[in-house]
């Protein structure tokens, strides 16, 4: 009974984290950017979605849509205002642009977090569930909303996987992640490729944020933790791999839950960290990563 409860309870939240991580890993794989403002973008989507749904009165669906658009807009802002200027800056030598982009996204993330805290306060907010009601699944009472979230996440991740691995656009993205110069020699515009990736990322992060708000609730204080989770999932799964992020999200998630239930709640973050260390030393490209 407990096992089934752990299995089912963890399923949806893990899918949610996987969704966020998939966007994160795509951005790193294709654009080469470790976006440390990731948590901030998710929370912007969540808070704006909540605000539109509740205070503005657009209802859960309208709020969700506006939230996702907000996520898209923030992703564009991050790329156009922070990442691209640094990458194109002539004052920064090529070898160092990575660290500058990293620091830049970090600062941008902090700016987002503090601005949100100022406007909306630190308190976590919850959106009204999109699908109300409870259902009994295998003997465990589960909210319908949770099932919907799990389904939506898996669907979207599946779509992204199809996009990346089976469509022409996706193959362009993969090629850009492996050999950008070769791609330009074939006549593709790299800047368009980057815009496409950041658009996908914006939608994914926005969706993840909105769903998180309707499920567990979130606030500006969570931004850092969300980034850290996405980070660990992506490292374990493999930078640039969609299926890797999915696998890692579930692996890390169930490890944590098992530790909390079977050993001690205070030791919860430890196995994930140990796994992280092991992966970085033994197989730094991640479980399913390429490079």
């Amino acid at each position, binding site marked *: 009974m407990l096992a089934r409860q752990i299995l089912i309870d963890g399923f949806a939240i893990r899918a949610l984290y996987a969704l966020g991580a998939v966007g994160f890993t795509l951005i790193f794989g294709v654009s080469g950017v470790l976006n440390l403002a990731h948590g901030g973008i998710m929370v912007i989507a969540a808070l704006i979605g909540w605000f539109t749904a509740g205070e503005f009165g657009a209802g859960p669906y309208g709020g969700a849509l506006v939230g996702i658009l907000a996520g898209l807009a923030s992703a564009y802002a991050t790329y156009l205002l922070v990442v691209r200027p640094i990458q194109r800056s002539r004052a920064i030598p090529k070898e160092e642009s990575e*660290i*500058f982009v990293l620091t830049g996204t970090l600062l941008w993330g902090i700016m987002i977090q503090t601005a949100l805290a*100022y406007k909306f306060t630190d308190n976590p907010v919850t959106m009204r569930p999109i699908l109300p009601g409870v259902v009994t699944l295998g003997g465990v009472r589960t909210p319908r909303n949770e099932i919907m979230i799990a389904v939506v996440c898996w669907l979207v991740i599946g779509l992204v996987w199809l996009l990346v691995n089976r469509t022409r656009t996706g193959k362009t993205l993969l090629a850009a992640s492996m050999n950008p110069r070769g791609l330009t020699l074939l006549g593709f515009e790299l800047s368009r490729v980057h815009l496409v990736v950041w658009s996908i990322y914006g939608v994914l992060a926005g969706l993840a944020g909105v769903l998180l708000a309707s499920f567990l609730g979130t606030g500006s204080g969570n931004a850092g933790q969300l980034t850290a989770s996405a980070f660990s999932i992506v490292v374990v799964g493999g930078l640039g791999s969609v299926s890797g992020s999915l696998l890692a999200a579930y692996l890390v998630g169930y490890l944590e839950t098992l530790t909390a239930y079977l050993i001690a709640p205070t030791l919860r973050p430890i196995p994930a960290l140990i796994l992280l260390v092991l992966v970085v030393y033994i197989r730094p490209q991640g479980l399913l990563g390429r490079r």
Partner: protein
Amino acid sequence: MRSLLSSRLLWGALVFVAVAAVLPLWLSAYVLGVLTAGYYFGVFAMAWDLLFGFAGEVNFGPTFLIGLGAYTAAMLNNRFGLAIPWCVMAGIVSALIGGLLLAMPALRLRGPYFGLVTLVAVLLLQNAIVIFAGVTGGEIGMTVPDVLSLSAATNYWYGLAFMVICAVILFGLSRSAMGLILQASGQDPIEARALGFNVTKHKLMAFSISAVFAGMTGALLVFYMGTASVGTLIDISIGVQIIIAAVLGGRRSILGGALGAVFLIGASEVLRPLGQLNTFVVSALALAVILFFPDGLLGHVLRRREAQ
């Protein structure tokens, strides 16, 4: 040309130190306290810059080394009542050992993975301290019975003197032969190896030096503040501030780190009335510097002179 540069730098530094030394005659104890913290921070930033600006290794967890040094010293003083100098020395040794344990396998990794490992080290240390709260005081922290001094002015002078000495040592190292080799290893390791230099050995040395200074400063900071806690010493946000200070002041200049740290701490204090927005403004400022003056404050000034 270069001697002109370094002599301008020298005069600028001398003026700075002279002005700083007489400040206690006018400023209040509170402001002196802020500046003292800034000076210790400056040493963190300078030690970080040696590793990053020169060896080219991005250390996302300088607080790992700081925390090791600080907590070792704090625990020895708290539990066994050892005198301050012994605790500081123990802190240095512990930070050095920890740094080597981290660096030896980590230097085998390339690119962002080294940074990742340093980040994970900080998380591990933070969680370890929280979990073994019985010994370490957990998230609340622990107090230490001994402090450096009770007078704000004396503490200020200790801090200033310490920063100046460390600055001289670190700057000297950066301009020495070893500094040059490190710079070469950082910017083009393949070529450096081709020229016959043992890149790994030099990077390890840089890491050890960074660890020694970080641990020493961490331990001294504990005895200045009288407490040690995760939030003030180990949290990722502290590491971030150190990195910002070093980049703001000017990477690869060593002294820029000190400047950046004092500026950062000063700016946070000056903007305190803004409340929560104070972090926003400081981060926005740092971002603007990165976008428009990537060489940092000191770097920008030095480059301009070089161009003349």
